């Protein structure tokens, strides 16, 4: 049984915020999903390797050659706000810490 507190902790890790009501709702839904997932505990996986991908390739390398990359102006095209060609964001360091 997952608690509202642990869901709030996971939300913090995931950089998401919820109202109390949303948190309640998500806790219920995640609990149901995790109950379904708990079926997996009945599978004997002793000594079974994990599969994280199905491709047999290893260490795919490319030639170490300089190539033209996307021009700066293009890269800035979807930036929400910019100033003097730089991405603008709110203050990163609190004033008190200056």
């Amino acid at each position, binding site marked *: 049984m997952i608690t509202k507190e642990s869901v709030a902790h996971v939300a913090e890790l995931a950089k998401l915020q919820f109202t109390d009501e949303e948190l309640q709702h998500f806790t219920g839904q995640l609990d149901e999903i995790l109950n379904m997932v708990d079926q997996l505990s009945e*599978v004997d996986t002793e000594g079974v390797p994990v599969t994280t991908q199905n491709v047999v390739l290893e260490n795919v390398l490319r030639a170490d050659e300089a190539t033209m990359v996307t021009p700066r102006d293009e890269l800035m095209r979807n930036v929400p706000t910019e100033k003097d060609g730089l991405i603008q964001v709110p203050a990163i360091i609190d004033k008190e810490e200056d």
Partner: protein
Amino acid sequence: MDYYKTNIDQLHADLVAGKITSADLTADTFKAIAAKDGEVQAFLALNQEAATASAANQDDQGIDADATLAGIPVAIKDNIVTKDLTTTAASKMLANFVPIYDATVIERLQQAGMIVVGKTNMDEFAMGSSTENSAMKITKNAWDHTKVPGGSSGGSAAAVAAGEVLVALGSDTGGSIRQPAAFNGVVGFKPTYGRVSRWGLIAFGSSLDAIGTLTRNVRDSAHVMNAIIGADEHDTTTVPRPQEDLGAKIGQSVQGMKIALPKEYLGKGVDAGVRAQIEAAADQFRAMGATVETVSLPHTQYAVPTYYIIASSEASSNLQRFDGIRYGFRAKDVQSLDSVYVRSRSEGFGDEVKRRIMLGTFSLSAGFYDAYFKKAAQVRTLISRDFENVFKEYDLVMGPTTPTTAFGIGAKVTDPLTMYMNDILTIPVNLAGLPAASVNAGFVDGMPVGLQLIGKAFDEATIYQAAAAFEDANDYKDQTPGGQN
């Protein structure tokens, strides 16, 4: 031009002979979209100006007899990036996102001369099975506008089924091409993992994602797949192979082919009408000289929980990039950097996306990793081994694509778990990285049923062989929504 009465080979012949032009075809496509999409709501963006120009360009160059796809319009699922054409993944997060490059599959289609006409609706970030998780609009099933088109490639499937386009690209992480193909009575094809570059596909579950096709018939699918397959320096999981024609065995008899029918695929939860159509399909394959035998894929029942842990874990990692800084939605009136992240993500993502991020973050978090992520990754191995065992003796696996035909709009959207269970027959294929198709296998109460054909890794040719034989033995593809023809 009526897309219900033609196919790529026919259009190509007419283009080469000068009976039609790409400009006319493209203009007719936009007319068909204008006439039908008000009701179906399959498209999110149209590319009319650029498409008209590239069609005129194709006509000026002349359509080469070897360029099967040249001058033919195609629609693209909105999680595949298209240079200068808004690409949203049906999320508020990317509502104004204009890509600065083309996905590899788009480059290849354009190289082949195809005309990109627009972007199709989907579940937000491809997370869903009904296209109801789109932040943009509700797409309708082409056969019954009160029903869902399936998902997440619901827009692509509905656009093809409604005759708005002949061909569309989709993506399939847990069934997102095959399930909407089944619900709309069209052909959906998901290639082997590693066959098609994912460069420019907005990532969901990177070890599962595959780009494939939605078409009205099997041969058209093979034509388009042939254009997009092959290694790509931008995606190191693409497997280098000699040039192949995936449709090479189309037209060959299935005489002597060994087909496995897993008992789990006709078990509890599969609608009786669907089961009857699939059993009838098995009998048809037998009548054509194939052997169809019942087998067991014993870990099938664990596919859904395994998938939701793995796909959500990968998604939680992939979606970290949406932080409101360099592109995408940024919340207004934020005072600190942390609140840019938190508020942009909380306001920009829809509920299903948040649910998956939460499930994934939980599964990967300290103290839960072994019990959830690692356990699921081990069960994934067992699911792959089930297929390996069956493929030692059989050429193909067959079964239904979905347990039921299309359900009603609103029927499952409030209950995530019921929605997830709908993917039980398509998910195992993604976990094992195998190729699979869904082809129309008739109707139950007027709604299409999908026959799923699963092949060995990199043996798409055998799927196409069997799918074409089945399609040719039936007239299902000539039946269209509204009973035209």
